[in-house]
């Protein structure tokens, strides 16, 4: 009995203590504080999770139903005869338009009266990549050999032709190996996945599929070898419905040697890979019973097609910046009449905002061809029609003077690559760069300018660096 009473008393005491704890103002404050702390921690965790999801979504790109760059009514399709490389390779076009060379020389003389040397697009182009070796790192017989070898495969695949020449080699318009029966995919989604899987096997870094958009196709096309115009309606073998866009990677370490002849080695090599993949994908589609034609820099403009296919965003240097690799890619395309596919959407990754503030490519451009200004509807460097004959109008973008770029190639006796090498988006695929990318997609403009400075501070994107040439020649030990 005594024990039972004691137990009851103890229970009663404990109950009193508990009640006292509850009613004690100090204890009440303590539990409120704990509740508040937990609440703050929970809210912080929720905010961090929401922020993380936002960053991941932005890094995957914000999808757009329409083409992401504003376009006005004055926009006209580009005549391929006005493409710089086509004009520079065509004697007939140079003879037809002497005012173009004249106007460019007047500008060059105005900009550099002391060191002016007459320039002629066609005549100077004939000795391109064939000049004497130089007594400078990156310009010896060794680097010239690398550059010519790099381009050799692309040239062989294109039947000795240039990247801009339509209907040659792998990009022939003849529908060879076309199967009689058309393969039926279970769904458009499956068709897209199967095509992209084939592209992956053939070596594509990235692949996107978009509707054929006549705005981005040359009209007319031009074959400068035969000096003849080509029409979509009269000459092209079918009415394309779909364009498959393929990206091939250029080597980071070789591109780091820009603007020396060495970087041409990876430019040519990536061209070879890009056209090889496009050629194989063309045969894949023809074997499925659909007409297809591979295309390098002919048929249509690569950049808007790559943007429309969701592979990247237009940059200040006029190229497409793709996530992870930046502008260090070469683009090829496949035009086909197969349209039962699920098309990709254009995506924006925050590149336009970064380019507005960065300007590193423009600062690194040896010919000052890249604008330091903001996007515009037409060129801002001149209003003379004889000078801006190659420029597009009616698209809000960065307008660059491609003629100056072409002239530097001739002066350099090899292409350049400075705008690719110096771009902060041009990085090897390492985890810490993805971390920087993650903050770039959410950070406001001034942070982008700061990131550009940090990129320089950390030693990235240096151009004209002889050490990068020397370093390249030691990379073979890991093979």
């Amino acid at each position, binding site marked *: 009995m005594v024990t039972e009473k004691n137990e009851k008393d103890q229970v009663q005491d404990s109950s009193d203590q508990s009640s006292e704890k509850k009613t004690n103002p100090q204890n009440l404050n303590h539990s409120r504080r704990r509740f508040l702390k937990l609440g703050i921690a929970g809210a912080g965790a929720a905010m961090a999770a929401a922020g993380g999801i936002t960053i991941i979504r932005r890094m995957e790109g914000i999808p757009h139903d329409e083409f992401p760059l504003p376009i006005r009514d004055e926009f006209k399709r580009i005549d391929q005869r006005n493409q710089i490389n086509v004009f520079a390779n065509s004697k007939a076009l140079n003879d037809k338009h002497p005012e173009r060379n004249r106007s460019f020389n007047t500008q060059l003389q105005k900009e550099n009266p002391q060191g002016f040397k007459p320039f002629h697009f066609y005549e100077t182009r004939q000795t391109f990549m064939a000049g004497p070796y130089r007594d400078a790192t990156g310009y010896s017989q060794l680097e010239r050999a690398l550059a010519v070898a790099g381009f050799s495969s692309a040239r062989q695949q294109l039947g000795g032709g240039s990247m801009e020449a339509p209907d040659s080699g792998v990009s022939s318009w003849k529908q060879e190996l076309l199967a009689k029966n058309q393969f039926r995919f279970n769904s458009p989604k499956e068709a897209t996945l199967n095509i992209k899987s084939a592209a992956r096997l053939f070596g594509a870094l990235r692949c996107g599929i978009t509707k054929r958009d006549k705005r981005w196709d040359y009209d007319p096309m031009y074959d400068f070898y035969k000096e003849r115009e080509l029409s979509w309606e009269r000459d092209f073998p079918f009415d394309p419905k779909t364009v498959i866009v393929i990206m091939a990677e250029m080597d980071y370490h070789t591109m780091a040697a820009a603007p020396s002849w060495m970087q041409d080695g990876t430019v040519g090599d990536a061209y070879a890979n890009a056209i090889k993949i496009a050629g194989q994908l063309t045969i894949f589609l023809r074997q499925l019973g659909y007409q297809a034609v591979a295309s390098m820099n002919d048929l249509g403009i690569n950049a808007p097609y790559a943007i429309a296919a969701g592979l990247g965003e237009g940059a200040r240097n006029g190229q497409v910046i793709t996530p992870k690799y930046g502008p260090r890619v070469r683009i090829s395309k496949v035009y086909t009449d197969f349209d039962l596919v699920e098309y990709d959407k254009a995506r924006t990754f925050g590149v336009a905002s970064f380019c507005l503030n960065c300007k590193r490519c423009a600062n690194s451009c040896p010919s000052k061809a890249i604008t330091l200004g903001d996007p515009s509807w037409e060129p801002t460097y001149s209003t003379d029609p004889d000078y801006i004959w190659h420029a597009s109008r009616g698209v809000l973008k960065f307008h660059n003077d491609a003629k100056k770029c072409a002239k530097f190639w001739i002066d350099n006796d090899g292409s350049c690559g400075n705008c690719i090498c110096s771009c902060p988006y041009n*990085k*090897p695929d*390492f985890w*810490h760069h993805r971390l920087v990318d993650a903050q770039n997609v959410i950070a406001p403009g001034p942070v982008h300018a700061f990131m550009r400075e940090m990129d320089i501070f*950390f*030693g*990235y994107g240096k151009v004209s660096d002889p050490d990068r040439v020397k370093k390249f020649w030691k990379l073979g030990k890991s093979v």
Partner: protein
Amino acid sequence: MMAFTWYLLGVLTGGVAYVLYLISRKITLNWLSWSGLIAGSSLVLFSIAWAVGSVLEGVPRAASMGILLFGLSGVVILTLVGRLLTLKKGGG
């Protein structure tokens, strides 16, 4: 090499967490001390990962700048927290 670095960083992170646990058993840590210790340790570990990544990608300058910027910041924070804890302990 990067895979080995991640493994090593995992071991180091575990070690740091254990040391923090031992400290917290000896000294009562307030939110400021906890924040400082976690931030400082994270920055030092991050700088190691950054430096190894930069060396592997062939940009040694980025490695040294990473150590300078992230690693040094971490060490400074840890030193300040250590000083704060010593003062607190000394002050009773």
